[in-house]
């Protein structure tokens, strides 16, 4: 018997990891009916036209509660009987919580759907109600709708934000050093060099966080491959990542190294933003979604934004865009019709205005005007100079995903373990495992 117990001890000692890993895996499955699912069915089951209905909205945007209260207040002016409760989950946990809830036939009525492959996957598995022909959808251009359209053409969501990545710059530093916004890649390098000569860090940038690498490459890269023409050919399979255009786009990232902060391989997202917000760095490659934070950190900063000038002769400057997510209806919801009413509302200009001004982000709804000048500038660039952020819009699949492969290979690029050509080869190798043109 003693022997049995001590054998048990071995098992117990050695399992604490497996417990933390698979335990949570299991636990989530078991407990979701009582725990993670939001009470979608708790309100009155059937409803006549005049009866009050309570909906829940799931989201990963935990910071947006106050904004959504304003949005819902506006919505209730039109639909006083539909009450919506905003119940967000932490971004990193959201997918897991939502997935488990959906599998057990629960979950919020209105869902913040992740863009592209991840969200579409849920739709194609039947968890999301198709909203083909929903009034209002026609205002969105096709490339925006691609973020929530399934393989068979079913539409699963109303796009909510169009993230736009460009080069933000400190107007005051540019003015003090007599610098103009660069129009070509060579001018950009010249501007960077003179900033460096004046002891100002040209780019607030760091290579420690993988997602920063893919996002910066997504913005800078088109300057190397010349924008949308190459993208079309790449998606049709006529071009490959190993072609010289794309290799050049990676090389450009490497060419910027002299203009990054000292020891940039150890600098993460918060630190690089601090460089820019505290006016130690003059430029910062990131999206409109960071404008609010930067303005809060340093309200005196004179912020401007310009598109990335191209290295390819004759190609115009670009900003990279991608849809950040969309509003979708849970296929298992008891109040699909009411939820669709909100989705309809989310296509309206008044919603777009609320969204753009309260959240300080670019709305995908055409004709929306932002009051913040920087956001307005971002929005205009998104309308006139956009190219897709490829790693999110088209290459966020595979295992590991092509995006993750790029991030890790680029870390190797900056650590001098790989050259641009080798990075391109790694990408192509990964793409070959899953991508069909």
């Amino acid at each position, binding site marked *: 018997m003693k022997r049995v117990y001590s054998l048990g001890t071995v098992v117990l000692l050695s399992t*604490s990891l497996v417990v933390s890993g698979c335990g949570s895996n299991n636990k989530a499955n078991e407990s979701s009916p009582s725990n993670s699912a939001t009470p979608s069915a708790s309100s009155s089951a059937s409803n006549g036209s005049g009866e009050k209905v309570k909906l829940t909205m799931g989201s990963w945007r935990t910071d947006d509660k106050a904004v959504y209260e304003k949005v819902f207040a506006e919505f209730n002016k039109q639909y006083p009987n539909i009450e919506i409760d905003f119940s967000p989950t932490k971004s990193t946990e959201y997918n897991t919580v939502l997935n488990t809830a959906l599998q057990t036939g629960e979950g919020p009525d209105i869902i913040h759907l992740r863009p592209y*492959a991840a969200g579409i996957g849920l739709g194609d598995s039947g968890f999301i109600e198709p909203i083909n022909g929903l009034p209002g959808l026609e205002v969105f251009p096709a490339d925006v709708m691609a973020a929530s359209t399934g393989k068979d053409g079913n539409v699963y969501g109303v796009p909510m934000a169009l993230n736009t990545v460009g080069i933000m710059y400190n107007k005051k530093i540019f003015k003090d050093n007599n610098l103009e916004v660069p129009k070509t890649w060579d001018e950009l390098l010249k501007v960077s060099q003179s900033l460096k000569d004046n002891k100002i860090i040209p780019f607030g940038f760091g290579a420690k966080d993988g997602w920063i690498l893919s996002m910066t490459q997504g913005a800078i890269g088109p300057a190397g491959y010349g924008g949308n023409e190459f993208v079309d050919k790449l998606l049709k399979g006529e071009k490959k990542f190993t072609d010289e255009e794309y290799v050049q786009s990676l090389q450009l990232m490497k060419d910027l190294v002299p203009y990054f902060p000292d*020891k940039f391989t150890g600098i993460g997202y918060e630190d690089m933003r601090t460089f820019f917000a505290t006016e130690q760095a003059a430029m910062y490659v990131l999206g409109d979604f960071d404008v609010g934070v930067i303005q809060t950190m340093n309200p005196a900063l004179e912020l401007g934004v310009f598109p990335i000038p191209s290295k390819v002769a004759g190609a115009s400057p670009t900003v990279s865009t991608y849809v950040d997510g969309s509003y979708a209806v849970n296929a298992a919801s008891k109040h699909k019709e009411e939820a669709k009413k909100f989705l309809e509302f989310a296509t309206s200009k008044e919603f777009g205005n609320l969204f753009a001004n309260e959240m300080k982000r670019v709305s995908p709804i055409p004709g929306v005007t932002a009051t913040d000048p920087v956001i307005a500038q971002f929005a205009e660039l998104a309308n006139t100079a956009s190219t897709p952020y490829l790693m999110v819009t088209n290459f966020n699949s595979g295992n590991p995903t092509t995006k993750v492969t790029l991030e*890790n290979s680029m870390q190797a690029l900056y650590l001098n373990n790989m050259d641009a050509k080798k990075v391109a080869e790694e990408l192509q190798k990964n793409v070959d495992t899953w991508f069909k043109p």
Partner: protein
Amino acid sequence: MADKPKRLQRNRWSIHLFPIPALAIYLLFIIYPICAAFSYSLYDWKGIKKLEFIGFQNFKNLFTLEPFNTMFWNALEHNVIYFVVQMVVQNGIAFLLAYLVFQKIKGSGFLKVAYFLPRLLSVIVVGFLWKLILNPTYGTINVLLDKLGLDSWTMPWLGDPSTALISIILVNSWFGVGLSLLIFLAGLQSIPTEVVEASRLDGVRGFRMIRTIILPLMIQPIIMVTVLTFIQSFEAFELIYAMQGSMGEPYYSTDTMAVFFYRTAFGGSSSDSVAIGLGSALAVVMFAIIAIISAAFLALTRKVNQE
């Protein structure tokens, strides 16, 4: 008279009923998840949807399919490094400190508490704190080196693959030294004073005392610390996650099996690359490695005890 032994016998058996509540908890929260993980690893998955039974294909993929096989061996190697460095640095220092405290030098009570103090912090706090200290631009270490005129020694400690893993292990050693110290100290205190005094009378001093008298009598706490360090090294996750995230950045240089497992089974925050089958297979392999080697260690202890 005749029924007394019988009653004793019944009582003897009833003793084995007492572990039942604890056993039930272990069955539910440990044995069941292990079995479930094993069953998950035998299926094909599409995202979070279980598809058909595919036998040991996931295990085969783990060892043969690029890039998972490279990642697996890479991660395993880091776990081994983790263990070796922790044994030498953390436990080596812990032993010396324990011996020092045992000598009842002035303030040894205070020192004992001081060395144990980091252990009271949450791992997340420790990770955050050291991330600041190791920051390449304003971190204490680089600033200090700079002030000392050693600016050529400054490094992006967590951003360079040659220093990232070792930095994290050393932070873990700083965190864990107190516990090893306490175990060693308890071991030292259980050595009969007569033995030490007798050998001292025989002229044994200093390092020779440690090597010939103390160490052989400390074999049990040493094995215990070794087992604990082994398990902790092979499950290394929290500190790496807190300091480097789930990608084992930079360029997989801080990847360990547990981080690899987390990434594979649950994916990142906005990608669809969850592979529950493969992740479960990895969890089962990890469990097997840890269980077998821990059992070997414990068997060794039993042998030592019997001698």
